[in-house]
């Protein structure tokens, strides 16, 4: 009898392993579908850290800004990296327009030409209070950028409270707005 149970146990081991692995895969894939798991998401260690020292040249129709100006704000600001050549940024514009009535958004144009950016904003609307440009992409690396669009919530005093390395969605803006209350 004891023999049989041990044999059964050994028999069931591969099946149990397969079941556990299957369960893990299933939860991962369902997370992918629901949007609460993204294998390509990059969580950089910037939360609750101060913003880097930087200064971006002005991008028409707005003026540039720097670290001091961002620190001296009395309200939270959403820093949004974008580019006219980036399709997800184009899709994000609608969400940014809606968001701009709740929070000030400052844009940084990543590796782009000033004319291309102005044209892009004329065509798709301008949700930004201020826009700077980073033609070389060096400033963006100091921020820890891994692609465009990417957004950072900067609190008064220049501390980063939230970071989103993807195009903003309605769901993610709800998370953002809940942080502001």
């Amino acid at each position, binding site marked *: 009898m004891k023999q049989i149970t041990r044999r059964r146990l050994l028999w069931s081991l591969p099946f149990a392993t397969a079941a556990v692995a299957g369960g893990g895969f299933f939860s991962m894939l369902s997370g992918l579908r629901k949007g609460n798991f993204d294998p390509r998401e*990059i*969580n*950089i260690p910037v939360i609750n850290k101060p913003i880097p020292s930087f200064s971006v040249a002005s991008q028409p129709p707005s003026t540039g800004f720097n670290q001091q100006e961002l620190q001296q704000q009395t309200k939270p600001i959403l820093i949004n990296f974008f580019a006219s050549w980036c399709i997800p940024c184009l899709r994000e514009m609608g969400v940014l327009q809606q968001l701009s009535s709740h929070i000030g958004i400052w844009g940084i144009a990543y*590796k782009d030409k000033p004319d291309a950016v102005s044209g892009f904003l004329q065509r798709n609307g301008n949700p930004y209070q201020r826009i700077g440009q980073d033609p070389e*992409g*060096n400033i963006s*690396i100091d921020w*820890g950028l*891994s*692609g465009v669009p990417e957004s950072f919530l900067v609190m008064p005093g220049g501390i980063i409270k939230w970071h989103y390395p993807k195009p903003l969605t309605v769901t993610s803006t709800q998370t953002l707005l809940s942080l502001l209350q």
Partner: protein
Amino acid sequence: MRYLTILFLFCIGLSTPHLSFGIDSPDEMLKNTQQEQRAQHLGSQLRCLVCQNESIEDSSADLAKDLRKVVRQRIVAGDTDSQVMQWMVDHYGNFIRLKPPFTFTTALLWFMPILALGIGCMIAFVTLRKNKNTVTTELSKEERQRLAKLMKE
């Protein structure tokens, strides 16, 4: 046997690291060969955040090119290898290291081979001990003669 040897050599050929370079132009490289070697060595340990399974030295993504540039700038500025690595980790987190550091969360990852070996040894030990208990009976004289006869046929 000869086929096995050929297959074995083929597999060895597959396992040798193939070299590929993401460097697009020679201008990217540093004039100082020693510094350039250090930069390449560091770059091969840094993950390209766009492709995620390639090092920045192998990747031709734009961001990888920028990070390669940063590595070289810092080396020229006089940073040590560990300082460059720290700069990257500060900006992009441990994810950028292709070789995960030993932390509490990665302990299981590091110990997994030893754990697996241990579990395997345990299973082997249990099965071997079980086999030892099975009684082996010697063949009697008649049986051996019968067996010899059967083998001759």
